């Protein structure tokens, strides 16, 4: 399934949620097929260990089943679902005391290309994956939500449970760190 299609088919998602709320297991199965892969991809940015990520992603889908009746329709279905995923992933990290990275340091911002410009030059999925892997889980999350899930800043704030102003700051520094990582990768390639 594709996230873009999931966005386009918001009406379908809502119809499925209504049926799930009524206890329709076939609707849940359809919902799982549409979203399980995307949920797992999102969770893996926060919980890199594959088995743990699958456990969390499975818990998210069960929570959708149990919580469908409480879905109020005040947000996109995907925003609601990713909010559940965020909370469950954070809970797991807290429980396991996974290593945290420093966030949003206030160092001055040097000039340089936008990450997108570097991507245009390299256009390499492996390059992006390697660069994203160097980011903190929080930075990975905001970039993934913004670019991968087409979320607005308000939606990211809702999913991550942080103010919109913090989202803006976090995106700003995440892009800077991504650009630095991409630069470093390109420089290494030149030297090689």
């Amino acid at each position, binding site marked *: 399934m594709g996230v873009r299609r999931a966005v386009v088919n918001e009406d379908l998602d809502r119809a499925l949620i209504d049926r799930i709320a009524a206890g329709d297991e076939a609707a849940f199965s359809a919902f799982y097929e549409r979203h399980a*892969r995307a949920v797992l991809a999102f969770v893996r940015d926060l919980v890199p260990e594959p088995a743990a990520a699958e456990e969390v992603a499975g818990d998210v889908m069960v929570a959708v089943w149990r919580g469908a009746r409480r879905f109020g329709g005040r947000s996109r279905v995907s925003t609601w679902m990713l909010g559940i995923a965020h909370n469950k992933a954070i809970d797991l990290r807290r429980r396991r005391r996974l290593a945290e990275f420093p966030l949003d340091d206030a160092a001055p911002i040097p000039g340089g290309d936008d990450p997108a410009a570097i991507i245009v030059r390299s256009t390499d999925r492996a390059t992006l994956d390697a660069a994203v892997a160097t980011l903190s889980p929080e930075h990975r999350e905001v970039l993934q939500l913004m670019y*991968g899930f087409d979320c607005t800043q308000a939606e990211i704030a809702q999913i991550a449970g942080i103010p919109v102003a913090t989202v803006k700051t976090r995106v700003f520094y995440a892009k800077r760190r991504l650009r630095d990582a991409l630069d470093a990768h390109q420089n290494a390639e030149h030297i090689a």
Partner: protein
Amino acid sequence: MSDPLEDLFHARVEDGAAPSDLMRERTFAAVARDRRGAQFRLAALRVAAAVVIVIGGGGLAFWLVRPHHPAPDDTIAFIQPVGTAPAIAHEATIVLIVTSVPDADATMRRWPQTTVQRTGPRARRIEVPAARYRTALAQLAQLGTLRTTTEHTVNLGAALARAKDGATRAALRHRLAYAHIEVNLETRSGT
């Protein structure tokens, strides 16, 4: 022109690792268990003339109403497990709200409000402090006939009374709730 960063992040999501068969099996097994539980609760609601939702100290209720009210006609279903009450609150005919429960944890303090908000207009609400809880149960007993008389539920109630830690108490409350419902169903079906 599309944003290359956006395209690549989309690809990260769409081409990410597919969920394993194990994840699928575990998820659908959990959903199936949940669905059976829901059917079980709904069945209990159908056979009960009155549905009492106990908010706070529900486990104590099962303990107190055990064999003291033996009767062939069980007309009240106690539904208490934390987290399930809000979902079925609209079915309640009586909501017993026990305040000042000594062992109330954060979860217990949070969900009663949701439950109460969702109860229908026909529900009779009885709010009592914990100190008057036993009296309130006696009053409830007069509204219908209470029964939770299997050895299993008595043992569970006794274990609950002895249990000290919250996790054990919560687990026992859940087991008691379902045991009670099971008694209801068995009685009604003649098994």
